[in-house]
């Protein structure tokens, strides 16, 4: 690995060998290794999405049995659903399974990230190494904001490719013919939409995760209660005192408000779009990027993370 060149040949009795300060510093990658260390510690980061994917695949295998019959039948049986949406359904379900899983993992990971290291006192070990508090907090923030979305994307793409090949194999074996399936399932488009959705989610939820990380750096215990109850209390107070629900709807908007901004759920003709397959034409990145809430949220996220960095610097083991 990385060995300082003169570390071994330094003689103990080298009175003349004055320590030369600018030794060639080996390039280190604190952020990279800090992220890897988070994944070592929190295996739920990949175990939970993989488990969800496994469940999704199991359901898909069962669904596969009905595929030939479905292809032979007409889409009329399925009401307003288009053929494409019907075919895309299991693929969409997989994504819908992975996204909430990643969100829940991200939430609980963030609540523990800066709390656990104080609770088990390992913060004293981490702080004994030349890794700044900023690097440490950024590594932790990147788990829900970058690592989990990438993981979900990777798992989804891989499994959807597998599902696609299996579907074709089943159709060919059953003699139904795969040409309709081939032409009607826009797999590449689905992956692009998923990637877009993951980026949207990550940007929109950044202040949520930053808030959770801040609470995790601040609270001595019961991080989940500290993160959630004060917000609910404010909403309830407002409801009772003023009979309004601004704060509550603000919270709801922060969790789910990305959807109407980033996607158009109706075609220009007013036809509703099936959520199992959202075509590329229904993405509205311009609208999303021009939403003030997005940018305000990102600023708030930056402020909360800066506060978490500062807290980590001051905080001692619990």
């Amino acid at each position, binding site marked *: *690995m990385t060995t300082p060149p003169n*570390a071994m040949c330094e003689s103990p009795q080298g009175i003349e060998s004055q*320590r030369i300060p600018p030794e060639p510093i080996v390039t280190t990658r604190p952020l990279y*290794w800090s992220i890897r260390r988070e994944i*070592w*510690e929190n295996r739920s980061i990949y175990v939970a999405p993989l488990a969800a994917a496994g469940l999704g695949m199991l359901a898909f295998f069962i669904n596969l049995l009905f595929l030939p019959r479905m292809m032979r039948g007409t889409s009329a049986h399925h009401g307003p659903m288009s053929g494409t949406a019907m075919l895309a359904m299991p693929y969409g379900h997989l994504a819908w399974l992975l996204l909430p899983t990643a969100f829940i993992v991200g939430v609980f990971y963030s609540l523990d990230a800066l709390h656990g290291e104080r609770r088990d006192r*390992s913060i004293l070990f981490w*702080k*004994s190494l*030349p890794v700044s508090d900023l690097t440490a907090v950024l590594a932790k923030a990147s788990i829900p904001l970058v690592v989990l979305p990438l993981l979900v994307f990777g798992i989804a793409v891989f499994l959807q490719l597998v599902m696609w090949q299996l579907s074709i194999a089943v159709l060919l074996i059953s003699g139904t013919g795969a040409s309709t399936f081939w032409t009607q399932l826009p797999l590449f488009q689905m992956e692009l939409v998923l990637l877009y959705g993951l980026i949207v989610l990550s940007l929109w939820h950044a202040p949520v995760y930053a808030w959770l990380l801040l609470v995790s750096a601040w609270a001595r215990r019961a991080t989940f209660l500290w993160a959630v109850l004060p917000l609910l209390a404010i909403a309830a107070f407002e409801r009772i005192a003023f009979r309004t629900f601004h704060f509550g709807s603000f919270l709801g908007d922060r969790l789910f408000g990305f959807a109407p901004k980033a996607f158009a759920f109706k075609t220009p003709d007013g036809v509703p779009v099936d959520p199992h397959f959202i075509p590329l034409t229904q993405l509205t990145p311009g609208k999303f990027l021009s939403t003030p809430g997005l940018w305000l949220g990102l600023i708030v996220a930056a402020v909360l993370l800066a506060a978490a960095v500062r807290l980590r610097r001051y905080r001692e083991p619990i």
Partner: protein
Amino acid sequence: MACIEARGLRKAFGTTIAVDGVDLRVEEGRILGLIGPNGAGKTTALNAILGLTPYQGELRVLGRDPWSNRDQLMRDVCFIADVAVLPRWIRVSQALDYVAGVHPRFDRAKAEGFLAKTTIKRASKVRELSKGMVAQLHLALVMAIDARLLVLDEPTLGLDILYRKQFYDSLLNDYFDRTRTIVVTTHQVEEVQDVLTDLMFINRGRIVLSCSMEEFESRYLELMVRPENIVAARALRPIHERQVFGRTILLFDRADRQQLAALGDVRTPSIADLFVAVIGNQTGQAQGAAR
């Protein structure tokens, strides 16, 4: 250049003053023992030196301000805190990977060499290791870092006597090279007596004694006085007096060895005895303070 230099170092937690205006200068290449009763402010002072806590007063460690430059400072400073702080979930191999990945002065081969002398397996998790093995692992990691200052806060707490002996042996034989500086706090004073080059007693946030070990040996004498000489010996103003098996033992600061030898058996006191004398006189509750 002084390795650690503090002037008027002060730290209060609310109304409790943990470190009360400490002046301190540790030269490079020394092994300083920081000895004090529980709650004396040792750990707080060390935390300030390591950039783990903000403080008042002036403090430079290797020419840097530790509080504002902790991550920079940690390239040249290592520490082992008072309790096992290696995360319990980490594997030995992961700990090696991580430190190698973030520390520019870590020599992985050296750490592997130290570990080869132990029974620690690469695939083990820290939670699976015994307390002694965790200390060995931490020491192996730290000794493989080419640091200029090593701070050890109760490094052998809770270890059995074999591990404790081994700990200081490897520290002296495999690590210390007279250019590095080591600061160690411990309650097991007799174990470090032959290791230290400098000695410092701290009590209630203040330094109550500071000397080199040469100074210590020439300055302090212990006299096991013969019963008939006891009045004459007391007239020489010992700083402490105690009874052992019916014999009176007197501790003197800057007494004449010849003069004392005429009154009984003279020897260099242990650090523990001096500690009891100095701190005990101060607090009036000498017993049990040293342990």
